[in-house]
């Protein structure tokens, strides 16, 4: 129980130590010296822990620890033999860089901030390689990505700000790409533990390509792979040198680590279903790696900033490593040599690149100038530094006896194997470029070395005091230089100690192992020396014509051709989207109330004002109606009732008139003395005559009412007619009155002819009616 538990606790402690150190910095925040010493102790502690872990790993095998429930899914830490190399490099170089930083950062501003992120980045980087599943890897990877931003931006000048901005942007894009791959792997494999993914990953359609590309892009950003390398040559030179040494020497290797993980654990060569993917991605990585190495080397030649040369050199060297990784993926089960040579070069590069950065930084510390053309003849002033530089340089250009010689030749062998696998001409060209780039490495390092150490002493160099050995400043790169030398001499030991992998993902059944390649033979030494001499010739040629002082125009860079437009596209897309869905919708919705108001207004006009007016008028109308109603039914009735007595009086008058006068008349007639017969006839006829007169009077009345209006009022005319008719006393007179026209305006009138016609017709009809029974 204790045996298996103890190492796991150590693993957890190793991962946590840097993070816990962050809290302890607080106590030393004001004392520069104590803080630096404390940091050296912490990083040394981490290094010792990693050494202990490596030892335990070689004895006990994989040490793992599952921490359930943290971050929802739980973390899974594991150290395998593959992780040991990375963990040792990280903690070891980090410790040396911390020692170096004590000297370099002395008197700098924002040291607390710098060292806090320094430790968190260490924790993130170490956690990345100590992780046992993709989830844990991603979390530590992101922690490292974000906190190393603070290391890059440290100087806070404009250059650092813009470089750090590019870095942050690309690091986050890379992180998101990894996350995409992570989601898909989690969905299709339902596990993220390295050793279990491959068996469970059942891919459908093109999903394998999506996953592979996502991981390649994500880890490629960190590794500085073409075409996502652009942040690297910007960010590495602007960071303070200890940070540059780590960024270039160590942190870009985590990207390579991720790529190796992807193409050995996620797509395992032991699963035949993944072979088509590995073949495709193997070729892709080799091609990208070749472009990366060539591009980095060519651009390094044209730099004048010494840190930029080293940064571009890092790009180029990552290309070399990627070629090994790509060959391994391409070769599948025969890929042993590819991955192992890549690991060898990772070790080599970590050692010599960190060493070179520290040396350059140490020179910069004396002069505060990064332009190599301002230097010259440093060999007199800084002999120890020069020796260290030469060792590092010999390492990187592959001088026999140094580690670069071994790893580069092994990489070349791996590429050669890959070419012989299917005789793909693409890989043949890659081989040619590989050799050519090796020569170019010599060119830019000769340039750097020549301008720094050889030549005439410049004004700047004259100011430098002759160096004394400073432990903090010079010990780290001296140690690294010694390591560069040692690792070049004992490749066999290095192989058996670190590089020979024993995990299931790295069981290669076919192909040669690097132990079988005898590196110290005439063939390899000759080819290396050939490449170096070609490089020297090119350098002398360039130097003679001063071609390498030409500046590459900015617009030619990939950043200006692709990334800036892509970034701007996102912006314009956003603004178009905003315009369409925010402003327009906004406007529409803001107009909606207005529109609604207009509709309401119209509605109101129609249904409110009209109704209002109608209703306003309604009382008046009602009043009018009432008025007329009143007029009809009140006034008239009133009048009628008022007149009623009068009418009654009139009626009674009329009745009394009628009957009284008639009676009087009758009485008068009765009283009249009967004298003659004629008179008697007269009296006989008088009643009939009276009745006829009455009838005629009625006719006259009718005529007056119905007839056309005259100037005289009807009353007057009636009265007149009455008078006239009453005055007629003989029948003849009456006939005359009827037909004679004497009584003008009453009966006989030309204008009133039709009335007489009616009367005639009436009489005719009467006659016919009376006579008809007879007929």
């Amino acid at each position, binding site marked *: 129980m204790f045996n298996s538990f103890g190492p796991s606790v150590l693993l957890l402690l190793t991962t946590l130590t840097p993070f816990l150190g962050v809290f302890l910095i607080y106590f030393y925040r004001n004392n520069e010296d104590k803080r630096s010493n404390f940091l050296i102790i912490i990083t040394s502690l981490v290094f010792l822990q990693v050494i202990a872990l490596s030892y335990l790993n070689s004895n006990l095998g994989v040490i793992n620890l599952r921490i359930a429930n943290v971050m929802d899914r739980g973390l899974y830490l594991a150290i395998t033999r593959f992780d040991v190399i990375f963990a040792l490099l990280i903690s070891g170089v980090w410790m040396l860089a911390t020692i170096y930083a004590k000297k370099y950062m002395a008197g700098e501003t924002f040291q607390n901030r710098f060292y806090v992120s320094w430790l968190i980045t260490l924790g993130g980087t170490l956690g990345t390689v100590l992780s046992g599943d993709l989830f844990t890897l991603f979390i530590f990877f*992101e922690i490292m990505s974000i906190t190393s931003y603070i290391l890059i931006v440290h100087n806070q000048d404009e250059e650092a700000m813009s470089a750090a*901005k590019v870095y942050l942007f690309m690091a986050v894009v890379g992180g998101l790409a990894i996350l995409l791959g992570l989601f*898909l792997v989690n969905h299709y494999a339902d596990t993220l533990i390295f050793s279990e993914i491959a068996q469970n990953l059942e891919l459908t359609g093109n999903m394998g390509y999506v996953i592979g590309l996502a991981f390649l892009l994500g880890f490629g950003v960190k590794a500085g792979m073409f075409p996502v390398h652009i942040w690297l040559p910007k960010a590495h030179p602007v960071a303070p040198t200890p940070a540059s040494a780590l960024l270039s020497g160590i942190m870009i290797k985590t990207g390579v680590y991720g790529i190796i993980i992807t193409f050995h654990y996620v797509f395992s060569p032991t699963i035949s279903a993944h072979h088509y993917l590995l073949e495709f991605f193997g070729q892709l990585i080799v091609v990208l790696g070749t472009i990366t190495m060539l591009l980095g080397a060519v651009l390094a030649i044209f730099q004048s900033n010494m840190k930029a040369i080293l940064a571009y050199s890092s790009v180029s060297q990552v290309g070399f490593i990627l070629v090994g990784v790509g060959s391994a993926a391409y070769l599948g089960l025969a890929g042993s040599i590819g991955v192992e040579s890549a690991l060898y070069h990772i070790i080599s590069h970590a050692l010599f690149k960190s060493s070179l950065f520290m040396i350059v930084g140490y020179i910069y510390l004396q002069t505060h100038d990064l332009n190599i053309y301002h230097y010259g003849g440093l060999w007199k002033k800084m002999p120890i530094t020069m020796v260290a530089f030469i060792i590092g340089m010999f390492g990187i250009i592959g001088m026999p006896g140094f580690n670069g010689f071994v790893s580069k030749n092994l990489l070349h062998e791996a590429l050669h194997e890959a070419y012989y696998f299917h005789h793909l001409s693409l890989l043949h060209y890659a081989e040619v470029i590989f050799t050519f780039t090796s020569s170019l490495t010599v060119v830019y390092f000769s340039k750097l070395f020549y301008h720094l150490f050889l030549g005439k002493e410049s004004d700047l160099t004259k100011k430098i005091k002759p160096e004394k050995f400073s432990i903090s400043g010079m010990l780290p790169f001296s140690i690294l230089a010694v390591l560069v030398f040692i690792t070049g001499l004992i490749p066999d030991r290095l192989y058996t100690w670190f590089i020979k992998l024993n995990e299931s993902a790295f069981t290669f059944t076919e192909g040669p192992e690097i132990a079988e390649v005898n590196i110290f033979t005439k063939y390899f030494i000759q080819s290396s020396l050939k490449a170096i001499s070609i490089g020297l010739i090119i350098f002398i040629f360039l130097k003679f014509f001063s071609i390498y002082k030409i500046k590459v125009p900015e617009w030619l860079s990939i950043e200006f051709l692709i990334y800036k437009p892509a970034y701007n596209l996102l912006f314009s897309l956003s603004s178009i989207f905003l315009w369409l869905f925010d402003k327009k919708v906004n406007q529409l919705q803001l107009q909606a109330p207005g529109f609604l108001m207009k509709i309401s207004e119209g509605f109101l006009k129609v249904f409110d004002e009209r109704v209002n007016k109608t209703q306003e008028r309604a009382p008046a109308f009602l009043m009018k109606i009432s008025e007329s109603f009143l007029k009809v039914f009140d006034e008239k009735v009133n009048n009628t009732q008022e007149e009623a007595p009068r009418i009654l009086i009139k009626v009674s008058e009329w009745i009394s008139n009628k009957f009284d006068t008639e009676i009087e008349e009758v009485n008068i007639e009765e009283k009249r003395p009967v004298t003659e017969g004629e008179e008697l006839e007269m009296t006989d006829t008088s009643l009939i005559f009276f009745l006829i007169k009455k009838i005629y009077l009625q006719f006259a009345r009718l005529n007056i009412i119905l007839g056309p209006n005259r100037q005289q009022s009807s009353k007057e005319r009636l009265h007149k007619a009455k008078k006239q008719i009453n005055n007629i006393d003989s029948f003849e007179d009456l006939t005359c009155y009827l037909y004679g026209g004497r009584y003008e305006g009453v009966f006989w009138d030309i204008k009133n002819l039709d009335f007489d016609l009616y009367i005639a017709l009436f009489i005719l009809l009467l006659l016919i009616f009376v006579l008809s029974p007879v007929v």
Partner: protein
Amino acid sequence: MSSFLILTPVLFPILGVLVLLAIKFTSGIKRELKDKLYDYSIFLFTLFSFISMLGFYPAIIRAGEKITLEFPNILLVGITFQLDALSYYLILIISFIWTLIVMYSLDYMKEERSKMRFHLFVLLNFAACIAFFLAGDLLTMFLFFEALTVLSYVLVAHAETQQAIKAANRYIFLSLIGGLGILFAIFVIYNTHGSLAFADIPYITTTTPYLTAAFFLSIFSFGIKAGIFPFHIWLPIAHPAAPSPASAILSGIMIKTGAFGMIRIMYNMYDIEMIRDLNWHIYLMIIAGITIFLGSAGAIFEYDIKRRLAYSSISQIGYIMLGMTFLNYSGVLGNVFHMTAHAAMKACLFMAAGAIMHQTGERDLRRMSGIGKMMPFTMLSFTIAALAMIGLPPLTGFITKWELSMGAIQADHVFYVFLLLLSSLMNLIYYSPIIIAAFFKERDNDSITTERNEVSWKMLTPIVVLALSTFVFDIVPANIPLQLAEKAASILIK
């Protein structure tokens, strides 16, 4: 199980209002003592609500019970309250955040005018908000939805400037229109099913044109409150217009009421199998997608800090809505969890922005270089919350992003994974300049920053606590909010 006790978190703030009024109209107390009494009673009565919620933990989470309370004769149909794992989770977290916001507002509003009105209405809003989350049927929910609308008007219009009143008017008009849609749904659903309850087994399994209309109308009505496209227009105006504590309440908590209503409609009334068959979720998904991109795009071009945060809220409400539309467990879990995760992050961001405005009176982001040195704790908290928004591990936003993306992949909509990742990137684009300017840029002529001038501890504590809450739960082995959210999601979908 039925108990009146579930109304205690609602009654405490109301009691608080009464106590405040009592203090106000009591004569013979010294001015200073009165001010202290105000502060204590406002804070304590909010805190009591939170504490009383803690008491339900054994019953709701351990035993998995559901407490209901019915008032059968009110409003003809009767109103019901229920406390299940979902509402418990939301109320618990929200009352905690609210308590912190109240604590912050005590000092923030000290110099402001009519602060008494503000505090009273914050308490009333709190009561209405909890009652909203407690609602056991659509009618009850509608009642408190309208109450919230009206009560929060006062918070938006608090400044009484023309701008604030305009914003508040736009807010209340849109929200009231939203209320009408819910009312329509109430009529239709009650007419066809004779019930408005939020049931564990959804009862609307077949649809008619009226029920379809009721579904979409109610979803969009709650969407108005939540601020989804195309009804988001009130949000970027109203949230910045309010005083900062109110912005934190509005953006952090109030828009979640809309999202909560949507969940209840979608998962407790309509059958999700029917929704899946009819492809209704696809439409909502598209709307959510547009909302996400729109919010992020809008935030990029804003330079007023609070407006940028408000646009960010639109984007985040899109996340919440998106999780709901995948109709699977991961999506719902992401949705439920993000409701509270976003509440914590956005409340923290708004309070930090408010702290800056309180100290400098400035809201233009371009003039804030070097503010990290002036207010280190505030800006560190701001940074952590902003990184959580971006979704960087190990912060809370990452868990949401994880769950939502897993939901999208399981639902076979990989496009939305890309959208989520793109939105993360855009979050970076609009949050990183603030952080960079705060910490890595020197003070220039244009900037308003001065020497170190941190806000008082009463204002700082809530900001720091919320910032810590975005990662503390993730790096310890027991992520309590997430476990509660899992419980809550499991009652919605299996």
